[in-house]
Structure formats: C-alpha cells, structure tokens
C-alpha cells in the first residue's frame, strides 16, 4: 500500500529496515553506510621482509558491499649509512593474502632523512562479511638504510596525520 505524505507533515513510526535501499529511486539515499577510523604510531624497519605495523577491522552490513580502504601518514626514509637509495613498500593483507600495495623511493645517497606524505585509497570489492586488514611495511633499496611511516623528525603532533579509514559503501 502506498504511503502518501500530506503537506509538510512528517511520517514517523516506520520500523527499522522496512524501507530497503533497493526501494529508493536511483541517486536517493546514502551510499556510505559506515566509517571507521583508527590511528597508528611511529614504525620503522630495516628489513626487506614485510612486518605488520597496524590492523583495522570492519564488519559489513552485507557481504556484497564494498570497502574503501584509506591509509594516510608520512613516509620516512634514511640513507644515512650510504649505499644508494632507500625506499619502502606497504602492503595490505587480509587473511595472510596480499590484497593491495604501494611503494615509495627516497633518500638517494644522502646523509639525511627524507619524508613525504602518503595518502592511498583502495576499493575492496571482495565478497565477505568482515575483514581485518593487516598493514605491513618493508624496506627496499640500500642495505643499511631504513624506512618508516609516520615520522617527521621529533614532531609528535604529526601523529594526528596517521590514520586508517575504512568506509563501507553500498554495493
């Protein structure tokens, strides 16, 4: 039975879930169903093997919905101990399987720390009801350098920039 709205009178009392998103006209209704944010600390590595530096989890309202995975922070590379350039990779694993990755190159044969902002977004269309994303970092480049994420020297305020944001988007 159709509900007719009269003038500016509001309609109240509809039970939760009685109107599905599929019932709405195209372009009507929200597509971002939930947003989860977490922060992470300062992490650096000298290893060319991936190591986890933080995790973030989400449980979707429907397995077919998508997740926009956002990683924000700062790369920091240190080639202070010579031997060419240093850089890094960050990979996102779910259940031990690599799902996304990105990379950075900086600090070529200079005795100093190089920083640069990182802002990555990946759209995860995997059909699953929940996921725990494991964010892992590794060094690439010179043998005795290091790579980190979230450092700008000793500026503790910079920690505010280091975020993981997960958004569930209606499929």
């Amino acid at each position, binding site marked *: 039975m159709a509900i007719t709205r009269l003038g500016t009178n509001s309609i109240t009392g509809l039970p939760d879930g009685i109107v599905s998103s599929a019932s709405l006209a195209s372009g009507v209704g929200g597509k971002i169903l939930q947003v989860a944010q977490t922060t992470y*600390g300062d992490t*650096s590595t000298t290893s*060319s*093997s991936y190591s986890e530096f933080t995790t973030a989890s989400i449980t979707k309202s429907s397995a077919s919905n998508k997740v926009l995975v956002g990683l924000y922070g700062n790369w920091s590379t240190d080639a202070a101990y010579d031997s060419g350039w240093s850089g890094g990779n960050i990979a996102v694993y779910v259940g031990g399987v690599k799902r996304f990755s990105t990379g950075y190159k900086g600090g070529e044969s200079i005795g100093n*720390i190089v920083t640069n902002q990182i802002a990555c977004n990946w759209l995860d269309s995997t059909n699953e009801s929940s996921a725990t994303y494991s964010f892992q970092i590794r060094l690439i480049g010179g043998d005795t350098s*290091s790579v980190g994420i979230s450092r700008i020297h000793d500026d503790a305020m910079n920690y505010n920039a280091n975020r993981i944001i997960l958004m569930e988007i209606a499929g």
Partner: protein
Amino acid sequence: MNNNKIIKAILKINPNAEVLVSDNDINKISWLNGTTPIPKADIEAKMAELQAEYDANQYQRDRVYPSIGDQLDMLWHSIDQNPKLKSEYFEFYEAIKAVKVKHPKNG
C-alpha cells in the same frame, strides 16, 4: 628519542640487523629474520655515544666559513683601502690588481 635514533644505534652495532621499531620505544623492537637481539642496555649506550659524538661536532657544524676565494677577495679589498698594507703586501696586492686592471669588470 625517535625510531631513527634507535635504528642508527642498532645498525652501528650490527650493520645487518633486521628490525622493526614501533612508537619510538626501545621496548618495542622486533628482531626479524634471525637477527640476534641486542641487549637494551647496549642500544642505549650506543645511542648515548652517538649523541655525544653529535654534540661534540656542534662546533664544526656552527663554523661555516666563506669560501677561500671570498676570504682572499675580502683580504685584497682591505689591503686596497690601506696604503701601509699595500706596501707590506706589495707582491700579493699587485698580482691581484694586475688581473683586475687587465680584465676590468663591465660597468
């Protein structure tokens, strides 16, 4: 303290060390791929040693002189302003002046 200082100390002790350091915390070091852990006290001692070296070099870092060429140029112009010095450093003064006369600055 930051991760970089911890890592520099570790690499000074073991250049091949593979580690993950978190939250700028010497208590949050993961030793990777068979790297033999270094005692915390040794890392702290090396960090103090590196900091002492850095502090000891402050004098050299602060003393940034003009280039040798600029220093000599300033010296020549000082002599040029003083007849007595022109006489005392005659050869030096005249050698430079000869070049200036032969190749004067435009304008």
